[in-house]
């Protein structure tokens, strides 16, 4: 994107920030109308900077920026409020969401619906993290990014059968199986239909949906292994 533009009062969240030069930060943000954008926050690491403490992840902000090229200049940041700080396991899961967005969301590709699902997920996290919140976010992410997670019919267009078993073939869709477990990635029709309706009341659907999402995300992130997952596991080993 070479167009010079100026953006005002744009709802956004900080995904990650890196130190830049002696006193500045490069901030990766997820904005409502412009998607993921990298912004230079000049002087944000100076002791008395108004930006210090404001550019905090998981907090709704309104940002203004201007410039051209890959890294634009942050001009203004305002705290919006309404989102309690995340703590404990919910905070770790917040990092997981951010890592997914950093990996999978291309720069300057707006995804307004995903933005609102993200904000909604963080609001739910404030009351304690639930597995179903993660599944809902992962599903929205894969659908919004055009990975074509079709949950109503199989790869041949036949409606899914709640009593059937399916294997997921990447880029193709769900393929009916003769019997459960005959593929490494086998899920029941019921799990898929529950996922489509976002009905997570059945624990076995929720558990299967987790395995399915893990496999899909591992594929789309190039199998590199997510940093947040590694750290999550280290916590469990303590």
């Amino acid at each position, binding site marked *: 994107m070479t167009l010079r533009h100026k953006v005002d009062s744009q709802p956004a969240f900080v995904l*990650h920030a890196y*130190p830049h*030069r*002696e*006193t500045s930060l490069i901030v990766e943000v997820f904005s409502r109308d412009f998607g993921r954008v990298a912004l230079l926050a000049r002087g944000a690491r100076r002791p008395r900077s108004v930006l210090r*403490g*404001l550019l*905090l*992840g*998981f*907090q709704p902000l309104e940002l203004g920026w201007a410039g051209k090229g890959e890294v634009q200049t942050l001009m203004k940041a305002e*705290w919006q*409020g309404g989102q*309690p*700080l*995340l*703590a*404990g*396991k919910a*905070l*770790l899961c*917040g*990092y*997981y969401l*951010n*890592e997914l967005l*950093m990996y999978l969301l291309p720069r300057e590709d707006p995804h307004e619906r995903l933005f609102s699902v993200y904000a909604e997920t963080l609001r739910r996290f404030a009351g304690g993290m639930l597995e179903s919140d993660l599944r809902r976010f992962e599903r929205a992410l894969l659908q919004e990014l055009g990975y074509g997670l079709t949950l109503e019919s199989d790869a041949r267009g036949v409606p899914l059968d709640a009593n059937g078993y399916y294997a997921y073939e990447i880029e193709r869709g769900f393929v009916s199986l003769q019997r459960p477990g005959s593929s490494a990635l086998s899920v029941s029709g019921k799990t898929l239909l529950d996922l489509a309706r976002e009905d997570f009341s059945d624990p076995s659907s929720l558990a299967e949906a987790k395995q399915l999402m893990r496999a899909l995300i591992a594929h789309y992130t190039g199998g590199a292994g997510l*940093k*947040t997952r*590694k*750290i999550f596991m*280290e*916590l469990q080993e*303590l």
Partner: protein
Amino acid sequence: MSTPSSLESLIEALRCLPGIGPKSAQRMAYYLMQRDRSGAQRLADSLSLALGALRHCQRCNTFTEAEICDRCLSSKRDASLLCVVETPVDMNMMEQTHAYSGLYYVLMGRVSPLDGIGPRELGLDQLLARACDGLVQEVILATNFTNEGEVTAHYLSEMLKNHAIRVSRIARGVPVGGELEYVDSGTLAQAVRERRSLSE
């Protein structure tokens, strides 16, 4: 005109400092060699002295020249309290309060999931061993109130909860002498959420 190789390697070496790019490194190298050769000598001497003499205290992990630092050996400190901070600077800030007389553990960093820094990278098992010396009764988590500081505190509390040690977190809220009119909204919002009861 080509740059002599010793000058080039000096420029390259200076670039290891945070925030120093090739241009600043070049400026620093020329300055040292041209304007302040005695300063350059002092810098070289103290660098190699520090490299040879400084190590991490076996108990608190801060920099010291001995196996165990003076503070950890002092009999005036309360050995039942262990305060965990991110950096030596944070430890100095705590000392300036004169409100704390226990001992410290300096993490020399914090957990940062998106940078791949977890318990292993921080060597949290060393802290666990320190906290389980039999004398420590309470661990006070004084990591920063950033998301990284919070996630670090979460790890530590999970790690310590199975070891019969009391774990506490320093409080956050409106600064002393702070007038609500001038306090930032984020701080005030969290102070309301974390309000405490005055009636027992």
